């Protein structure tokens, strides 16, 4: 029941919200559903904390790693819903672009991500990861403009092809499991595969490597690793801002979680050398590639999207370094990045609403005219570039520290370089946006719920930077125990 209710509720809400043709009623229904969902997720986290793991049938299971990622999903979903309530007024009238369709698709998207997190069976995990693409493609193309359609199509095709490679990798792993004597139905179960340990790699070790390679490319496409990132800036820039926040802060984490599960299996089967080297390569490519591309962006949301790629590279680096400190930093970083990036996308949504554009050369003089948005933008940018006292400083420092401890000087250089270049790109744009004069702007528009959503995110990044609650540190340690990397 603890797992079933929060899993089923989003699907139920997604279906029944379509009944309400009146926008206000649909909003009320969706928000109520959202609140109940958050309560159910919190209850689940609490139960998992007490019982280490809960299973539901042969296919679903929640453990410490799941709850850690569900925490960030819950937070992102909650603030997104809060933000959407007022943001929805900008959505132009159209056949499928009414509030009820928006909420229905958002809850469907939530359902697929939740299901992906709760999957114990790797085949089912793949099915749900593909379903996240399908559920969110219509949201990416929600505005139905030329750009939105192009971005939606590209997202659909690139991610489906990418994920197809992950399916091939899953089959290779299944083959290795069957050949090493694990009976067929259990041969896709994550727990079984991790416990099988070295026996899995004994028969055909090259098969495990092949599997991880394909899965890393496949799920790496969804994470947005360079060079498979081509869909990511388009989708983030063209989607409605709350959806950009969901994509960047929830979906990328979800794909990273899937890759983490495979990484654990590979490490247990053939040792950490292969998979961690792969993660370091993708991490380094993403850090360098994305930070350089950030310098030439002319659109606020594209800039933020490339910053997401950079931070996913940071998380991969943390895992790839391979000592507990690095894994700790990576898990903490994925949570921190979610909070900071949702804040920034909400700001971008508000900027678009007031300036009517996201072109960086058109936005100036914000500090004078838009007080709240400017404050949140400053907080968000300072947080995302890893300034103390914000929480991303803590996690980036842990990852960097781990690289130093391992004496991996190449990675140290790469991480520092990416941080510096990213810092330059973002701070340059920040001072340009805030400074100057812009007389053209009328009275700024910002709704109370929008301020509330942004304030929650800002509070989280600041609060977790000043004082990391022991309960949260405990959660990360339990997640690390699950992976036992």
């Amino acid at each position: 029941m603890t797992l079933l209710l929060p899993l089923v509720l989003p699907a139920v809400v997604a279906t029944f919200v379509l009944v309400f043709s009146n926008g206000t009623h649909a909003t009320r229904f969706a928000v109520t559903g959202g609140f109940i969902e958050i309560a159910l997720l919190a209850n689940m986290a609490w139960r998992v904390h007490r019982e280490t793991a809960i299973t539901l049938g042969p296919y679903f299971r929640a453990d410490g790693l799941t709850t850690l990622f569900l925490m960030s999903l819950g937070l992102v979903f909650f603030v997104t819903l809060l933000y959407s309530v007022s943001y929805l007024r900008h959505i132009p009238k159209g056949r499928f672009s009414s509030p009820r369709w928006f909420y229905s698709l958002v809850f469907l998207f939530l359902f697929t991500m939740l299901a992906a997190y709760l999957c114990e069976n790797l085949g089912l995990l793949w099915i749900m990861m593909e379903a996240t693409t399908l559920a969110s493609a219509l949201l990416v193309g929600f505005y139905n403009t030329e750009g939105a359609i192009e971005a939606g199509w590209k997202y659909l095709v690139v991610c489906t092809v990418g994920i197809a490679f992950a399916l091939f990798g899953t089959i290779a792993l299944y083959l290795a499991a069957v050949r090493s004597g694990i009976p067929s139905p259990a041969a896709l179960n994550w727990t079984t595969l991790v416990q099988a340990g070295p026996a899995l790699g004994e028969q055909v070790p090259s098969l495990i490597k092949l599997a991880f390679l394909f899965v890393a490319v496949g799920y790496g496409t969804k994470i947005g690793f360079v060079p498979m990132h081509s869909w990511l800036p388009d989708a983030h820039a063209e989607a409605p801002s709350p959806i950009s926040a969901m994509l960047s802060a929830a979906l990328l984490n979800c794909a990273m979680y899937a890759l983490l599960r495979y990484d654990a299996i590979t490490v247990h089967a053939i040792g950490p050398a292969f998979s961690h080297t792969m993660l370091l390569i993708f991490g380094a490519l993403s850090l360098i590639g994305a930070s350089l591309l950030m310098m030439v962006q002319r659109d606020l949301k594209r800039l933020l999207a490339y910053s997401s790629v950079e931070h996913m590279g940071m998380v991969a680096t943390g895992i790839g370094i391979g000592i507990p400190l690095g894994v700790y930093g990576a898990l903490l970083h994925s949570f921190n990045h979610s909070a900071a990036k949702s804040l920034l996308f909400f700001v971008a949504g508000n900027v678009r609403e007031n300036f009517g554009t996201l072109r960086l050369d058109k936005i100036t003089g914000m500090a004078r005219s838009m007080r709240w948005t400017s404050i949140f933008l400053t907080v968000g940018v300072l947080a995302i570039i890893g300034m103390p006292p914000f929480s991303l400083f803590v996690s980036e420092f842990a990852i960097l520290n781990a690289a130093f401890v391992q004496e991996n000087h190449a990675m140290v250089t790469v991480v520092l370089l990416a941080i510096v270049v990213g810092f330059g790109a973002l701070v340059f744009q920040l001072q340009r946006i805030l400074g100057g004069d812009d007389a053209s702007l009328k009275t700024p528009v910002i709704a109370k719920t929008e301020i509330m959503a942004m304030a929650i995110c800002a509070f989280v990044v600041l609060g977790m930077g000043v004082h990391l609650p022991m309960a949260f540190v405990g959660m990360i340690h339990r997640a690390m125990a699950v992976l036992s990397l």
Partner: protein
Amino acid sequence: MGLISNAASHALSSSTVLIFLTLLLLAATKRLSTCISLFIVQSAVIAAQVFAIAHLHHSAEAYIVGTVVLVLKVIAIPWVLFYLVKKLRTTRDVKASLSPAPSVFVAAALILVSFSAVQSYARELNVARDPLAAAVAIMLMGCFLMITRNKALAQILGLLILENGIFMAALVTTFGMPLVIEIGIAFDVLMGVFLMGLFTFRIRDSFADLDVSKLRRLRG
């Protein structure tokens, strides 16, 4: 050994030739509807292979999987594709950026590459080499078609062919994934085709064409 069992035991390796034939023809054809027909043939061959395996292993699960493949990939999805071709009133051409002759050469090269790629795996895993090579060749060909065909519908077809290859790889190495997973994957594929079909309508309405090489506003 009865006649049917005898035929079934040879079905896997001998039907591989048909697969290679469809791949070479796919490279050569310019007409969209012919491509869809070739996809039907390819899917039918794979469905026949599933039934052959089901017969040899007396596996009820495999019979169900075979039926799903038959209904979905031989009937439902091609029907959707033909419907889209008719409804979108588009030109028949797949808008290939590589003309047929070099395409066939590339396809032949891909088949050779897949044979050499699976050589060592086939020996280590003790599975038949030819069907495995065919599976990899289908996957490579799917990727190749997606890269060189610019019409949205042809890209959907490339994706489906890629998926066929993955399915066949699972079939020849492990006699297929567990039933629940296979059905889930099939459902995802079907939903994916529907969704992409929906997008083709939007692309046509906004760009007045189905040529995705015109989708080049977003870059950098």
